[in-house]
């Protein structure tokens, strides 16, 4: 009978296959059981020491392969584990176990488990994730000592690995052997190693479905749907047929998207439209590249400022911006300066209570009240600018005087760095988001002071229609792509093009399959969207000519 399990997260993709329950344990391998008791603890400790070095080297090599494949964040996991494999505490604990008469395999397990417990007891989410690293290190050393131990060798294709949780090394090993596999884990969250790695490596996964799944028999037919975080066991024929069709479509689309990855965004007739990505942290830049982004049209910097009690330092910001620019390797990165307001107060930034935070001190206006904060951000960006092509974008601009103020601030930041003898670039383009109707109707005037423009359609429609985006019912009645908003966009695009200035769209409208081509048909230079939306948009644009998109735009603008 068909049965469903639901997880708390996972990685997208569908796999139709058979269950393999993987219950890893340090001591289940036959070699470890067959080992005769060791009469000489010193010799055993030396053997352990060699296994530590070999495991560390294996983990480092794994890290190097991931680096070479562009998975630098994942590589960091294994670099840290390589270091822990040779940790003196581990050696001491193993030695104590051996001296107490334990066989080596058990000593390794006990020591790694003890260290895991020490970190897990610290009640810090970061450290509990690192606690899992300790068990992974123990297993890596165990695998060196008893090489036949890995049950993940010789799995048939289309295997769905069901496990309590998987170590990063196990996840990566499966990926490297190019098996068509998926993961289902009983434990783990959406931000754990397994889920993050699976997403990054493109393997379907569902995590955190609960212990019951571990009771499944091997070879049970199963469907893993990573999009909906669902595991369907013993699927009914109709369910199976639906998923087979979905998988065929998905595979064909993915294969086609992969061929487009390194091609530019353009219409069928060759008219170019940049397809750029919106990102929220440096890690996302790698994701953007993997999806074929030609630039970053919106780098939201709020992640640096939220969930903390003090403002981020200039150095901390510099490191984040530099990392992003390095990942983008010379492609344009538009960094938006801090964009928050009274609806999301920060403990270190006083904002007086406001009746209407969306019309209050937010975005650039907040920076005007906290010039130290703004200066630190501008200095960090100018320093990072040595490492790539960075543009600075200001949020919540209504009048030319907003840009004039920010331009003076930028000059001051450059002057400070110059005086301190800190390396930087001063010739960084300064542009604005168009999200107030005020800005949208005066682009010709703003173009005298602004080097480029990007339309933030979410706020522009909210301010144009006077509709709070948070109110679902109202939003449904007054959609974003309605005539007044489209006309404002068209007016802004025409004025920017006449002034010879770059204009893009970084709001949600740009990534909507039907609307992206329409906006491109109005003449925007670039559409910026979530990385995953880029491949389908690239494919869609290539099916149309610019003339067709332009005609569709004119039709929509006529009302």
């Amino acid at each position, binding site marked *: 009978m068909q049965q469903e399990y639901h997880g708390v997260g996972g990685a997208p993709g569908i796999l139709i296959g058979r269950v393999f329950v993987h219950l890893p344990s340090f001591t289940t391998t036959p070699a470890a059981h067959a080992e005769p008791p060791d009469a000489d603890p010193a010799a055993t400790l030396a053997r352990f020491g060699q296994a530590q070095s070999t495991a560390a080297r294996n983990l480092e090599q794994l890290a190097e392969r991931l680096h070479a494949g562009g998975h630098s964040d994942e590589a960091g996991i294994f*670099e*840290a584990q390589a270091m*822990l494999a040779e*940790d003196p505490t581990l050696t001491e604990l193993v030695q104590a176990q051996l001296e107490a008469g334990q066989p080596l395999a058990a000593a390794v397990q006990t020591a790694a488990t003890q260290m895991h417990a020490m970190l897990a007891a*610290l009640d810090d989410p970061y450290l509990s994730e*690192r606690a899992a690293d300790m068990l992974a290190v123990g297993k890596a050393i165990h695998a060196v000592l008893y090489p036949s131990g890995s049950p993940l060798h010789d799995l048939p294709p289309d295997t769905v690995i069901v496990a309590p949780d998987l170590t990063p090394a196990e996840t990566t090993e499966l990926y490297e052997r190019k098996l068509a596999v998926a993961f289902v884990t009983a434990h783990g969250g959406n931000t754990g190693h397994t889920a993050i790695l699976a997403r990054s490596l493109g393997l379907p996964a569902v995590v955190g479905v609960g212990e019951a799944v571990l009771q499944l028999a091997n070879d049970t037919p199963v469907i893993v749907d990573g999009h909906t975080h669902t595991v369907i066991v013993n699927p009914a024929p109709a369910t199976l047929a639906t998923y087979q069709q979905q998988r065929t479509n998905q595979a064909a689309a993915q294969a086609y998207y992969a061929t487009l990855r390194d091609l530019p965004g353009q219409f069928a007739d060759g008219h170019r439209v940049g397809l750029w990505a919106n990102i929220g942290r440096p890690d996302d830049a790698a994701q953007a590249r993997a999806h074929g982004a030609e630039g970053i049209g919106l780098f939201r910097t709020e992640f640096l400022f939220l969930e903390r009690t003090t403002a981020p330092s200039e*150095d901390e910001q510099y490191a*984040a911006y530099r990392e992003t620019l390095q990942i983008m390797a010379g492609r344009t990165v538009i960094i938006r300066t801090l964009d928050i307001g009274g609806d999301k107060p920060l403990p270190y930034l006083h904002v007086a209570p406001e009746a209407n935070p969306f019309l209050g001190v937010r975005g650039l206006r907040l920076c005007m009240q906290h010039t130290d904060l703004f200066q630190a951000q501008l200095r960090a960006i100018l320093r990072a600018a040595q490492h790539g092509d960075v543009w600075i974008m200001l949020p919540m601009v209504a009048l030319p005087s907003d840009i004039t103020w920010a331009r003076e601030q930028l000059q001051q930041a450059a002057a400070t760095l110059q005086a301190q003898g800190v*390396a930087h670039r001063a010739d960084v383009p300064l542009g604005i988001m168009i999200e107030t109707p005020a800005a949208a109707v005066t682009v010709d005037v703003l173009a005298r002071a602004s080097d480029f423009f990007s339309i933030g359609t979410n706020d522009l429609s909210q301010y144009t229609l006077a509709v709070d985006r948070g109110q679902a019912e109202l939003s449904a009645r007054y959609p974003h792509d309605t005539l007044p908003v489209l006309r404002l966009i068209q007016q802004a695009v025409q004025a920017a093009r006449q002034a010879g200035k770059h204009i893009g769209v970084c709001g949600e409208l740009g990534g909507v399959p039907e609307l992206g081509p329409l906006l491109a048909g109005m003449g925007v230079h670039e559409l910026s969207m979530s990385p995953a939306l880029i491949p389908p948009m690239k494919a869609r644009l290539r099916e149309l000519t610019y003339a067709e998109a332009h005609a569709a735009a004119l039709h929509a603008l006529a009302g």
Partner: protein
Amino acid sequence: MQEVTLIVTHPVGLHARPAKELFQQARAFKSKITIQNLSRPETKELPVSPFNLLQIGVKHGHIIRLRAEGEDETEAIAALAALVQNDFGERTEAS
């Protein structure tokens, strides 16, 4: 015995590469070298090792005390203090 109290200014704190650098440099000295995270009073003074650095969870802005005892204790403290103060060699790159 030599000691120094420092504020960690590297953005990631004493994790990842900074932790590796500190451990590797500390290991090169003959002296016994320990570290305590004064910003987490519940943590103990421990020998510098990858696992111990994890345990004491030093983040950006935390204050640490390094102690060295042995024949090269003065050189050890000078070298390790310089390492932390220069953000583990990354600061020079920015200036």
